[in-house]
């Protein structure tokens, strides 16, 4: 099955998730072609050629230097239509979320987003994706003529599982057809907001809180547990949105990604946006009143119960 991978770079660095997309494409069979849109990306394309793929194409245009959905859709649609692969894949990054649905619509082809797996069954690809906040998994198939388009959740495939080729793959530069005047978005320079005073990635132990904490008045309880464990306090997005815990302590796709020795999740359901930021923790403890909460899928130790009873009991047990 011919697969075309759309790779992603920012500031001269290949997004790690692009290697995961290549691994996904290789697993589906191949031959695999990698397409890297941008301006001055030939060197990065050459780095991607270490993978065992048929070809890497640097799709160049100065208007692709700063990402815009209009520019990317315009550049990619004709190239994909001409290459006519069976499948187009990309990582489900914030950038892909911005342009891939428009690209599939422009091509008038079927798209599956945020898939966590794919297998070939009777010549067609069956994708697995999560629904209802990770409470169920669905097998889905795409209908209509190829190419079909798929984005894969970050971490669904392992970037280090990419098969390397004996020799570097062929690298080619193609000039994209982009009319700058038709790009409607005018992007400014990306910036970081929080001063990132807290580097949670260096913490050995983290106590993290979710919606189950119910109110700002209960934050001190979680802080007490963190202190007793010698841990940093962190939170899922809704807690930071509410202002109960500072934004720079947010774990998840829009916050920090951590891999501590111990991660204690209090009242966190385990929505994927949070899980991607902490599933690398060595030991995960979850306290949640809902026995079916997805967090228990990835927890090493679970206590099903009311955190307002369990947390004081843990603090008491630690003092002994």
């Amino acid at each position, binding site marked *: 099955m011919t697969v075309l991978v759309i790779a992603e770079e920012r500031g001269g660095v290949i997004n790690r998730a692009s290697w995961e997309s290549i691994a996904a494409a290789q697993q589906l069979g191949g031959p695999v072609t990698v397409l890297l849109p941008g301006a001055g990306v030939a060197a990065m394309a050459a780095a991607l050629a270490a993978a065992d793929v048929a070809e890497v194409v640097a799709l160049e245009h100065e208007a692709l230097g700063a990402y815009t*959905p*209009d520019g990317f859709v315009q550049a990619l649609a004709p190239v994909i239509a001409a290459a006519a692969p069976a499948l187009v894949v990309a990582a489900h*990054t*914030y950038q892909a*979320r*911005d*342009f891939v*649905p*428009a690209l599939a*619509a*422009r091509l008038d082809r*079927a798209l599956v*987003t*945020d898939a966590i797996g794919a297998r070939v069954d009777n010549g067609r690809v*069956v994708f697995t994706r999560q*629904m209802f*906040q990770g409470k*169920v*998994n*669905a*097998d*889905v*198939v*795409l*209908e209509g003529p190829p190419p079909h388009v798929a984005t894969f959740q970050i971490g669904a495939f392992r970037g280090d599982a990419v098969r390397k080729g004996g020799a570097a793959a062929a690298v080619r530069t193609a000039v994209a057809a982009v009319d700058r005047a038709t790009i*409607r*978005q*005018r*992007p*400014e*320079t*990306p*910036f*970081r*907001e929080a001063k990132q005073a807290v580097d949670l990635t260096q913490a050995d132990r983290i106590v993290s809180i979710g919606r189950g904490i119910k109110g700002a008045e209960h934050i001190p309880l979680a802080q007490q547990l963190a202190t007793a464990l010698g841990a940093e306090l962190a939170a899922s997005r809704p807690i*930071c949105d*509410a202002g109960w815990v500072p934004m720079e302590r947010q774990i998840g*796709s*829009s*916050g920090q*990604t951590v891999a501590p020795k*111990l991660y204690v999740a209090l009242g966190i*359901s385990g929505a994927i946006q949070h899980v991607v930021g902490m599933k690398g923790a060595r*030991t995960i403890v979850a306290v949640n009143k*809902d026995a079916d909460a997805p967090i228990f899928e*990835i*927890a*090493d*130790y*679970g206590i*099903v*119960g*009311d955190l307002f*009873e*369990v947390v004081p*009991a*843990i603090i*008491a*047990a*630690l003092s002994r």
Partner: protein
Amino acid sequence: MKIAVCIKQVVTREWQVRIDDAKTWVRDRDASWELNEPDAYALEEALRLKEKHGGEVIAVSAGPARVSQVIREALARGADRAIQVEGDALATADAWATADALAAAIKDEHVDLVLTGLQSDDQGFAQVGVVLAERLGVAHSTIIMEVEVDASNAAPGLRVKRELEGGWFQWIAMPLPAVLTIQSGINQLRYATLKGIMAAKKKAVRVVAAPAAPATRQRITAIRVPEKSKATRVIGGSPTEAAKELVRVLRDEVRVL
């Protein structure tokens, strides 16, 4: 400024998901329903833009008859009127069919701006807003954390703050009309007041039948409860017993304390 807000009715987060007999959808007949959270933030943003710049907010929802619940909710919070695109098949529709139904309802309204949440809590496609922009032929941007309207020019435009990964952001300018998908947490939500609920009863709701559904593009073949990737040890007993055992395990077995 005329703003359409696309809202979806989803099962509540607390609802216990059960799989139906055909194993292709969930048994949601007895479910409780609510306004999809990111869409609630989109609605709030629309109301704030109207308060600042004047105009009208139209709530639009596509789904079975039950979505009138979230339409009433939106009207009670301050939307001026609503369009309900009714069709039973929309309950389980793919992103393409949903965007198609919304586009048909919105296109003749000639709105300046369409807002919707960045994704839904049920199927979570994160596609509908972007596909809708493509269908309407207007500019778009996604995962938006701030919206500024520049009405000083003859051709009014937007400047929006887009969230990137890992704590990065970017401002993007674009012309109107446009479609934006809104990130949760962009603002502080308001809730319906009694006065709002009363006023909502007098507001116009235009019910239109869903257009003929386009061919399915994504079909669900099976649904199941996820396989566990890890053996979780559930520690039982009273809170005190469980806490004691957890601390013992972390100290003596995992040796992380």
